[in-house]
C-alpha cells in the first residue's frame, strides 16, 4: 500500500463517518459537525494529492485546501447562527421535531 492510498482510505472513512452522523443524528449541531468532518476529509484528499502529485511547487492542491478551510469556517458560522435562530423560535434543536416550514 502506497502512502497516498493510506491517506485516501483514511479520508474516505472519515467522510463516511461524517455522512453517517449527518444522516442519523437528531441534534442539528451534530449534523453540522458531521458536515464539517466531510469537508475536512475532502481537505485531506486535496493535501495528499498535492504532496504525492507530480508538481507540488504549483501549489494547486494546497491553495484549494486553504480556500476550502476558509469557506468551511464561513459555513460553520452561518450554520450555527441559523441553529441558534431556530432554537429561539421552536425551542428545540431536534431535527425530527422540525416538521413545519411555516413559523
Amino acid at each position, binding site marked *: *500500500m*502506497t*502512502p*497516498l*492510498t*493510506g491517506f*485516501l482510505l*483514511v479520508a*474516505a*472513512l*472519515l*467522510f463516511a*463517518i*461524517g455522512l*453517517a452522523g*449527518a*444522516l*442519523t443524528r*437528531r*441534534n442539528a*449541531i*451534530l449534523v*453540522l*459537525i*458531521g458536515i464539517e*468532518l466531510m469537508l*475536512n476529509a475532502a481537505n*485531506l484528499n486535496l*493535501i495528499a494529492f*498535492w*504532496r*504525492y*502529485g*507530480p508538481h*507540488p*511547487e504549483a*501549489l494547486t492542491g*494546497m*491553495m484549494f*485546501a*486553504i*480556500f476550502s*478551510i*476558509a469557506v468551511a*469556517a*464561513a*459555513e*460553520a*458560522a*452561518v450554520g*450555527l*447562527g441559523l*441553529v*441558534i435562530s431556530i*432554537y*429561539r*423560535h421552536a425551542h428545540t*434543536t431536534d*431535527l*425530527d421535531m422540525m416538521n413545519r416550514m411555516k413559523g
Partner: protein
Amino acid sequence: MSVVFYILAAMTIAGGLAAMLLKNTVHCALAVTVAFSGLAFLFLELDAQFAGFAQILVYVGAVAILVVFAILLTRGSETPKDSVYSKNWLAGLVIAAGVFAVLGWAVLQSAAVLPHETATPTVTVLDIGNALMTRYVLPLEIVALLLTVAMIGAVIVALHEKTEAQ
C-alpha cells in the same frame, strides 16, 4: 507507511467516531476537536505546514469554540430522554456504508495508477504568500468578501427577534 501515520489516522478516526456516537453533545464537540487536531497533524505529516497550522487555528481554535458556544446557548448539552438518533437511522447508516464501500473500492482499484512522488516538496510560506498575492489574488479577495458577508449574516440571523413580531 510510517508508524506516525497509523497513530495519527487512528486518532482522527477515533475522534470522528466518538463525535458521532457519544450521547452527550458537549462530549461530541470535544471529540470532534480531537479529530480536527489529528487532521492538522496529518497535514504536518504531509509536509503541508501552512495548511496544518491554518487547520489548528481555524478548526481547533475557532470552529470548536463556536460549536461549544452554540451547544450551550441552545441547551443541547442536555442528553435527550429517548434516542439521540433519528427514526430512519438505518437508512442513513446503509447509505454511509455504501458510500464508503464505493470510495474504498475506487481507491484500491486505482492504486496502481495513483501518483507517488517521493521527493519532499520544498514550499515555504513565502511561496504561498507570493502565490496568494499574484496568481490567486482574485479568489483571495472573493474569500475575504465571503467571510465578511458570512460574519454579518451570522450576526443578523442570530439577533434577537422583536417581541412585537410574535
